Protein backbone atom coordinates (compact mmCIF):
# COMPACT_ATOMS: atom_id res chain seq x y z
CA UNK A 1 0.00 0.00 0.00
CA UNK A 2 2.77 2.41 0.96
CA UNK A 3 4.65 1.64 -2.26
CA UNK A 4 1.60 2.69 -4.25
CA UNK A 5 1.27 5.91 -2.26
CA UNK A 6 4.97 6.67 -2.68
CA UNK A 7 4.87 6.01 -6.43
CA UNK A 8 1.81 8.22 -6.85
CA UNK A 9 3.47 10.95 -4.78
CA UNK A 10 6.60 10.84 -6.93
CA UNK A 11 4.49 11.07 -10.07
CA UNK A 12 2.61 14.07 -8.70
CA UNK A 13 5.84 15.84 -7.74
CA UNK A 14 7.52 14.95 -11.01
CA UNK A 15 4.58 16.18 -13.05
CA UNK A 16 4.44 19.40 -11.09
CA UNK A 17 8.20 19.83 -11.48
CA UNK A 18 8.12 19.42 -15.22
CA UNK A 19 5.25 21.84 -15.56
CA UNK A 20 7.24 24.34 -13.54
CA UNK A 21 10.64 23.58 -15.04
CA UNK A 22 11.29 27.16 -16.02
CA UNK A 23 9.10 28.62 -13.34
CA UNK A 24 11.29 31.57 -12.48
CA UNK A 25 8.23 33.68 -11.79
CA UNK A 26 6.26 32.25 -8.91
CA UNK A 27 3.98 35.14 -8.25
CA UNK A 28 2.00 37.69 -10.12
CA UNK A 29 3.60 41.08 -10.48
CA UNK A 30 7.07 39.62 -9.97
CA UNK A 31 10.19 39.93 -12.04
CA UNK A 32 13.30 37.80 -11.97
CA UNK A 33 16.55 38.59 -13.69
CA UNK A 34 19.64 36.42 -13.62
CA UNK A 35 23.15 36.52 -14.98
CA UNK A 36 25.31 33.46 -14.56
CA UNK A 37 22.78 32.19 -12.06
CA UNK A 38 20.70 29.14 -11.42
CA UNK A 39 17.09 29.49 -10.45
CA UNK A 40 14.31 26.95 -10.37
CA UNK A 41 15.98 24.29 -12.51
CA UNK A 42 15.11 20.60 -12.66
CA UNK A 43 18.32 18.75 -13.46
CA UNK A 44 18.61 14.97 -13.53
CA UNK A 45 22.39 14.88 -13.53
CA UNK A 46 25.20 17.12 -12.38
CA UNK A 47 24.83 20.56 -13.90
CA UNK A 48 27.72 22.96 -14.26
CA UNK A 49 27.23 26.46 -15.54
CA UNK A 50 30.47 28.16 -16.51
CA UNK A 51 30.42 31.78 -17.53
CA UNK A 52 33.19 34.07 -18.70
CA UNK A 53 32.50 37.42 -20.25
CA UNK A 54 32.75 41.18 -19.86
CA UNK A 55 31.16 43.10 -17.00
CA UNK A 56 27.77 41.72 -16.01
CA UNK A 57 25.02 43.96 -14.77
CA UNK A 58 21.54 42.78 -13.97
CA UNK A 59 18.82 45.10 -12.79
CA UNK A 60 15.08 45.17 -12.21
CA UNK A 61 13.47 48.58 -12.19
CA UNK A 62 9.93 49.64 -11.46
CA UNK A 63 9.71 53.40 -11.61
CA UNK A 64 5.99 53.55 -10.83
CA UNK A 65 4.21 53.24 -7.52
CA UNK A 66 4.45 50.02 -5.57
CA UNK A 67 2.36 47.25 -7.03
CA UNK A 68 -0.50 46.53 -4.64
CA UNK A 69 -1.43 43.20 -6.20
CA UNK A 70 -1.17 40.52 -3.54
CA UNK A 71 1.02 37.50 -4.10
CA UNK A 72 -0.80 34.62 -5.72
CA UNK A 73 0.86 31.25 -5.19
CA UNK A 74 0.26 28.56 -7.72
CA UNK A 75 -1.11 25.58 -5.81
CA UNK A 76 0.36 22.12 -6.25
CA UNK A 77 3.56 23.18 -8.01
CA UNK A 78 7.07 22.24 -6.99
CA UNK A 79 10.62 22.02 -8.23
CA UNK A 80 12.56 18.83 -7.52
CA UNK A 81 16.34 19.12 -7.74
CA UNK A 82 18.08 15.81 -7.16
CA UNK A 83 21.49 16.49 -8.72
CA UNK A 84 24.46 18.67 -7.91
CA UNK A 85 24.38 22.24 -9.16
CA UNK A 86 27.66 24.02 -9.78
CA UNK A 87 27.56 27.64 -10.88
CA UNK A 88 31.09 28.57 -11.92
CA UNK A 89 32.04 32.10 -12.93
CA UNK A 90 35.52 32.90 -14.22
CA UNK A 91 35.88 36.44 -15.32
CA UNK A 92 37.79 39.69 -14.88
CA UNK A 93 35.02 42.32 -14.69
CA UNK A 94 32.50 43.67 -12.21
CA UNK A 95 29.29 41.88 -11.22
CA UNK A 96 26.33 44.02 -10.22
CA UNK A 97 22.80 43.12 -9.16
CA UNK A 98 20.26 45.91 -8.62
CA UNK A 99 16.56 46.16 -7.79
CA UNK A 100 14.96 49.61 -7.97
CA UNK A 101 11.58 50.12 -6.33
CA UNK A 102 8.64 47.84 -7.04
CA UNK A 103 7.63 44.80 -5.07
CA UNK A 104 8.58 41.10 -4.97
CA UNK A 105 11.41 41.54 -7.45
CA UNK A 106 14.62 39.58 -7.57
CA UNK A 107 17.94 40.37 -9.25
CA UNK A 108 20.66 37.73 -9.22
CA UNK A 109 24.21 37.91 -10.49
CA UNK A 110 26.74 35.09 -10.19
CA UNK A 111 24.47 33.41 -7.66
CA UNK A 112 22.59 30.20 -6.95
CA UNK A 113 19.01 30.82 -5.83
CA UNK A 114 16.42 28.27 -4.76
CA UNK A 115 12.99 29.55 -3.85
CA UNK A 116 9.40 28.48 -3.43
CA UNK A 117 8.38 24.86 -3.47
CA UNK A 118 11.77 23.35 -4.18
CA UNK A 119 13.35 20.21 -2.82
CA UNK A 120 17.12 20.14 -3.20
CA UNK A 121 18.94 16.98 -2.23
CA UNK A 122 22.21 17.50 -4.09
CA UNK A 123 25.17 19.80 -3.61
CA UNK A 124 24.82 23.51 -4.31
CA UNK A 125 28.08 25.15 -5.32
CA UNK A 126 28.72 28.70 -6.38
CA UNK A 127 32.29 29.47 -7.44
CA UNK A 128 33.16 33.00 -8.49
CA UNK A 129 36.68 34.03 -9.48
CA UNK A 130 37.03 37.59 -10.65
CA UNK A 131 39.26 40.63 -10.41
CA UNK A 132 36.26 42.98 -10.37
CA UNK A 133 33.76 44.14 -7.77
CA UNK A 134 30.65 42.38 -6.50
CA UNK A 135 27.66 44.62 -5.80
CA UNK A 136 24.09 43.87 -4.68
CA UNK A 137 21.77 46.87 -4.23
CA UNK A 138 18.08 47.34 -3.49
CA UNK A 139 16.80 50.90 -3.87
CA UNK A 140 13.42 51.32 -2.25
CA UNK A 141 10.31 49.20 -2.73
CA UNK A 142 9.19 46.23 -0.70
CA UNK A 143 10.07 42.53 -0.43
CA UNK A 144 12.86 42.76 -3.00
CA UNK A 145 16.05 40.69 -3.05
CA UNK A 146 19.36 41.35 -4.76
CA UNK A 147 22.06 38.66 -4.76
CA UNK A 148 25.63 38.96 -6.01
CA UNK A 149 28.07 36.09 -5.62
CA UNK A 150 25.72 34.46 -3.13
CA UNK A 151 23.64 31.38 -2.43
CA UNK A 152 20.09 32.13 -1.34
CA UNK A 153 17.44 29.62 -0.27
CA UNK A 154 13.94 30.69 0.66
CA UNK A 155 11.00 28.48 1.55
CA UNK A 156 12.71 25.37 0.19
CA UNK A 157 13.66 21.95 1.48
CA UNK A 158 17.35 21.20 1.24
CA UNK A 159 19.83 18.61 2.38
CA UNK A 160 23.44 17.95 1.48
CA UNK A 161 26.10 20.60 1.17
CA UNK A 162 26.18 24.27 0.25
CA UNK A 163 29.50 25.80 -0.79
CA UNK A 164 29.85 29.45 -1.76
CA UNK A 165 33.39 30.35 -2.78
CA UNK A 166 34.29 33.83 -3.95
CA UNK A 167 37.88 34.64 -4.84
CA UNK A 168 37.81 38.31 -5.55
CA UNK A 169 40.43 40.98 -5.46
CA UNK A 170 37.84 43.75 -5.88
CA UNK A 171 35.38 45.24 -3.41
CA UNK A 172 32.20 43.63 -2.14
CA UNK A 173 29.20 45.89 -1.50
CA UNK A 174 25.76 44.99 -0.21
CA UNK A 175 23.24 47.80 0.35
CA UNK A 176 19.56 48.56 0.86
CA UNK A 177 18.58 52.21 0.55
CA UNK A 178 15.14 52.97 1.94
CA UNK A 179 12.17 50.71 1.39
CA UNK A 180 10.91 47.94 3.62
CA UNK A 181 11.48 44.18 4.01
CA UNK A 182 14.23 44.13 1.41
CA UNK A 183 17.37 42.01 1.40
CA UNK A 184 20.72 42.47 -0.30
CA UNK A 185 23.30 39.69 -0.23
CA UNK A 186 26.88 39.97 -1.49
CA UNK A 187 29.26 37.02 -1.17
CA UNK A 188 26.95 35.51 1.41
CA UNK A 189 24.79 32.48 2.16
CA UNK A 190 21.23 33.40 3.19
CA UNK A 191 18.69 30.82 4.31
CA UNK A 192 15.17 32.10 5.03
Amino acid at each position, binding site marked *: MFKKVAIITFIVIGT*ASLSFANGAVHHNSSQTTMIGSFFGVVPTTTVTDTASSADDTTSVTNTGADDTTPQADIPGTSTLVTADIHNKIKRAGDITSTVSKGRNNQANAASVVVTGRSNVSGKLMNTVKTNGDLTAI*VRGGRNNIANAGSISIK*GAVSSGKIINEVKNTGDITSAVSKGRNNQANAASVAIN
Partner: protein
Amino acid sequence: MKLLIAVVFLPTLLCPISGQCSDLLGLQMENRITSGEYTAKVEGSNNTVNAGSVMISAPNGGKVVNRVHAAGRVSATASGSDNLVNSGSVVMRNSRSADVSNRIEAQSITNTVNGNNNTSNIGSVVMDHADGGSIDYSLKAENLASTIHGTNNRLNVGAVQVNGAGLGDVVEHVDMNNVSVSVSGSNKDVAVDSVILK
Protein backbone atom coordinates in the same frame (compact mmCIF):
# COMPACT_ATOMS: atom_id res chain seq x y z
CA MET B 1 8.42 -1.15 9.17
CA LYS B 2 6.12 0.35 6.54
CA LEU B 3 4.71 2.70 9.14
CA LEU B 4 8.24 3.80 10.08
CA ILE B 5 9.13 4.48 6.45
CA ALA B 6 5.92 6.42 5.97
CA VAL B 7 6.49 8.54 9.07
CA VAL B 8 10.08 9.35 8.07
CA PHE B 9 9.80 9.93 4.34
CA LEU B 10 6.24 10.96 3.56
CA PRO B 11 6.51 14.46 5.08
CA THR B 12 9.66 15.06 3.02
CA LEU B 13 7.88 13.99 -0.13
CA LEU B 14 4.89 16.16 0.57
CA CYS B 15 6.84 19.29 1.56
CA PRO B 16 7.30 20.57 -1.99
CA ILE B 17 3.57 20.31 -2.54
CA SER B 18 2.59 22.10 0.64
CA GLY B 19 5.23 24.67 -0.22
CA GLN B 20 5.84 26.06 3.23
CA CYS B 21 8.21 23.43 4.59
CA SER B 22 11.30 25.56 4.73
CA ASP B 23 13.74 23.07 6.13
CA LEU B 24 17.41 22.21 5.94
CA LEU B 25 18.05 18.57 6.65
CA GLY B 26 21.54 18.15 7.99
CA LEU B 27 22.82 20.77 5.62
CA GLN B 28 26.50 21.69 5.69
CA MET B 29 27.28 25.24 4.66
CA GLU B 30 30.59 26.82 3.68
CA ASN B 31 31.11 30.44 2.69
CA ARG B 32 34.70 31.22 1.66
CA ILE B 33 35.43 34.78 0.57
CA THR B 34 38.67 36.50 -0.41
CA SER B 35 38.34 40.13 -1.40
CA GLY B 36 39.41 43.78 -1.08
CA GLU B 37 36.97 46.02 0.82
CA TYR B 38 33.60 45.05 2.25
CA THR B 39 30.69 47.48 2.57
CA ALA B 40 27.31 46.54 4.03
CA LYS B 41 24.81 49.41 4.34
CA VAL B 42 21.09 49.53 5.10
CA GLU B 43 18.52 52.35 5.41
CA GLY B 44 14.74 52.23 5.92
CA SER B 45 12.94 49.67 8.04
CA ASN B 46 12.90 45.88 8.39
CA ASN B 47 15.68 45.45 5.86
CA THR B 48 18.53 42.94 5.91
CA VAL B 49 21.96 43.27 4.39
CA ASN B 50 24.60 40.53 4.32
CA ALA B 51 28.18 40.90 3.14
CA GLY B 52 30.52 37.96 3.51
CA SER B 53 28.08 36.43 5.97
CA VAL B 54 25.93 33.41 6.65
CA MET B 55 22.37 34.09 7.81
CA ILE B 56 20.02 31.25 8.68
CA SER B 57 16.37 31.71 9.63
CA ALA B 58 15.23 28.13 9.15
CA PRO B 59 15.74 24.75 10.78
CA ASN B 60 19.17 23.30 10.14
CA GLY B 61 21.28 20.49 11.51
CA GLY B 62 24.66 20.70 9.91
CA LYS B 63 27.95 22.49 10.25
CA VAL B 64 28.34 26.17 9.38
CA VAL B 65 31.69 27.52 8.17
CA ASN B 66 32.31 31.17 7.28
CA ARG B 67 35.78 32.30 6.14
CA VAL B 68 36.43 35.91 5.12
CA HIS B 69 39.77 37.44 4.21
CA ALA B 70 39.54 41.13 3.31
CA ALA B 71 42.65 42.97 2.20
CA GLY B 72 41.06 46.38 2.93
CA ARG B 73 38.36 47.85 5.16
CA VAL B 74 35.20 46.14 6.39
CA SER B 75 32.31 48.60 6.85
CA ALA B 76 28.79 47.94 8.19
CA THR B 77 26.21 50.75 8.55
CA ALA B 78 22.56 50.68 9.65
CA SER B 79 20.22 53.69 9.86
CA GLY B 80 16.44 53.77 10.26
CA SER B 81 14.56 51.23 12.34
CA ASP B 82 14.45 47.45 12.78
CA ASN B 83 17.29 46.80 10.35
CA LEU B 84 19.86 44.02 10.41
CA VAL B 85 23.28 44.46 8.86
CA ASN B 86 25.81 41.64 8.90
CA SER B 87 29.38 41.73 7.73
CA GLY B 88 31.66 38.74 8.14
CA SER B 89 29.21 37.21 10.60
CA VAL B 90 27.14 34.10 11.22
CA VAL B 91 23.58 34.84 12.35
CA MET B 92 21.15 32.10 13.25
CA ARG B 93 17.54 32.66 14.25
CA ASN B 94 15.12 29.95 15.29
CA SER B 95 17.56 27.43 13.96
CA ARG B 96 19.70 24.49 14.98
CA SER B 97 23.19 23.66 13.84
CA ALA B 98 26.13 21.45 14.64
CA ASP B 99 29.37 23.39 15.04
CA VAL B 100 29.78 26.99 13.93
CA SER B 101 33.15 28.31 12.72
CA ASN B 102 33.58 31.98 11.82
CA ARG B 103 37.03 33.39 10.98
CA ILE B 104 37.46 36.95 9.76
CA GLU B 105 40.60 38.85 8.82
CA ALA B 106 40.64 42.49 7.69
CA GLN B 107 42.86 45.55 7.71
CA SER B 108 40.32 47.82 9.48
CA ILE B 109 36.71 47.62 10.65
CA THR B 110 34.12 50.43 10.81
CA ASN B 111 30.71 49.83 12.33
CA THR B 112 27.99 52.55 12.57
CA VAL B 113 24.40 52.34 13.84
CA ASN B 114 21.84 55.20 13.86
CA GLY B 115 18.11 55.07 14.65
CA ASN B 116 16.08 52.58 16.66
CA ASN B 117 16.02 48.80 17.07
CA ASN B 118 18.88 48.16 14.68
CA THR B 119 21.47 45.42 14.87
CA SER B 120 24.90 45.60 13.33
CA ASN B 121 27.25 42.63 13.40
CA ILE B 122 30.86 42.43 12.28
CA GLY B 123 32.96 39.32 12.66
CA SER B 124 30.45 37.95 15.15
CA VAL B 125 28.34 34.89 15.83
CA VAL B 126 24.75 35.62 16.88
CA MET B 127 22.39 32.85 17.91
CA ASP B 128 18.86 34.01 18.65
CA HIS B 129 16.62 31.20 19.85
CA ALA B 130 18.97 28.77 18.13
CA ASP B 131 20.63 25.61 19.35
CA GLY B 132 24.20 24.89 18.39
CA GLY B 133 27.25 22.83 19.07
CA SER B 134 30.62 24.43 19.60
CA ILE B 135 31.43 27.94 18.38
CA ASP B 136 34.89 28.69 17.07
CA TYR B 137 35.46 32.24 15.95
CA SER B 138 38.38 34.51 15.33
CA LEU B 139 38.66 38.13 14.29
CA LYS B 140 41.90 39.78 13.25
CA ALA B 141 42.04 43.47 12.38
CA GLU B 142 44.50 46.34 12.77
CA ASN B 143 42.00 49.13 13.56
CA LEU B 144 38.44 49.11 14.86
CA ALA B 145 36.03 52.10 15.05
CA SER B 146 32.42 51.70 16.18
CA THR B 147 29.64 54.29 16.67
CA ILE B 148 26.11 53.75 17.94
CA HIS B 149 23.35 56.41 18.33
CA GLY B 150 19.62 56.07 19.12
CA THR B 151 17.60 53.63 21.20
CA ASN B 152 17.47 49.85 21.45
CA ASN B 153 20.36 49.34 19.09
CA ARG B 154 22.77 46.45 19.22
CA LEU B 155 26.32 46.44 17.97
CA ASN B 156 28.52 43.34 17.95
CA VAL B 157 32.15 43.28 16.90
CA GLY B 158 34.13 40.10 17.34
CA ALA B 159 31.51 38.87 19.75
CA VAL B 160 29.31 35.88 20.45
CA GLN B 161 25.70 36.72 21.36
CA VAL B 162 23.54 33.84 22.48
CA ASN B 163 19.90 34.44 23.35
CA GLY B 164 17.82 31.61 24.77
CA ALA B 165 19.78 28.84 23.12
CA GLY B 166 21.59 25.67 24.04
CA LEU B 167 25.28 25.94 23.41
CA GLY B 168 28.48 23.91 23.33
CA ASP B 169 32.05 25.08 23.82
CA VAL B 170 32.96 28.61 22.78
CA VAL B 171 36.51 29.34 21.62
CA GLU B 172 37.47 32.86 20.61
CA HIS B 173 40.57 34.40 19.10
CA VAL B 174 40.44 38.19 18.77
CA ASP B 175 43.44 40.19 17.64
CA MET B 176 42.81 43.93 17.29
CA ASN B 177 45.33 46.72 17.67
CA ASN B 178 43.50 50.10 17.96
CA VAL B 179 39.90 50.06 19.23
CA SER B 180 37.57 53.10 19.39
CA VAL B 181 33.89 52.89 20.47
CA SER B 182 31.47 55.88 20.67
CA VAL B 183 28.03 55.39 22.25
CA SER B 184 25.01 57.67 22.84
CA GLY B 185 21.25 57.18 23.34
CA SER B 186 19.49 54.63 25.50
CA ASN B 187 19.13 50.86 25.80
CA LYS B 188 22.07 50.17 23.56
CA ASP B 189 23.88 46.88 23.63
CA VAL B 190 27.53 46.99 22.62
CA ALA B 191 29.78 43.96 22.64
CA VAL B 192 33.39 44.06 21.46
CA ASP B 193 35.55 41.00 21.88
CA SER B 194 32.96 39.51 24.23
CA VAL B 195 30.78 36.52 24.85
CA ILE B 196 27.21 37.45 25.87
CA LEU B 197 24.74 34.84 27.06
CA LYS B 198 21.14 35.85 27.76
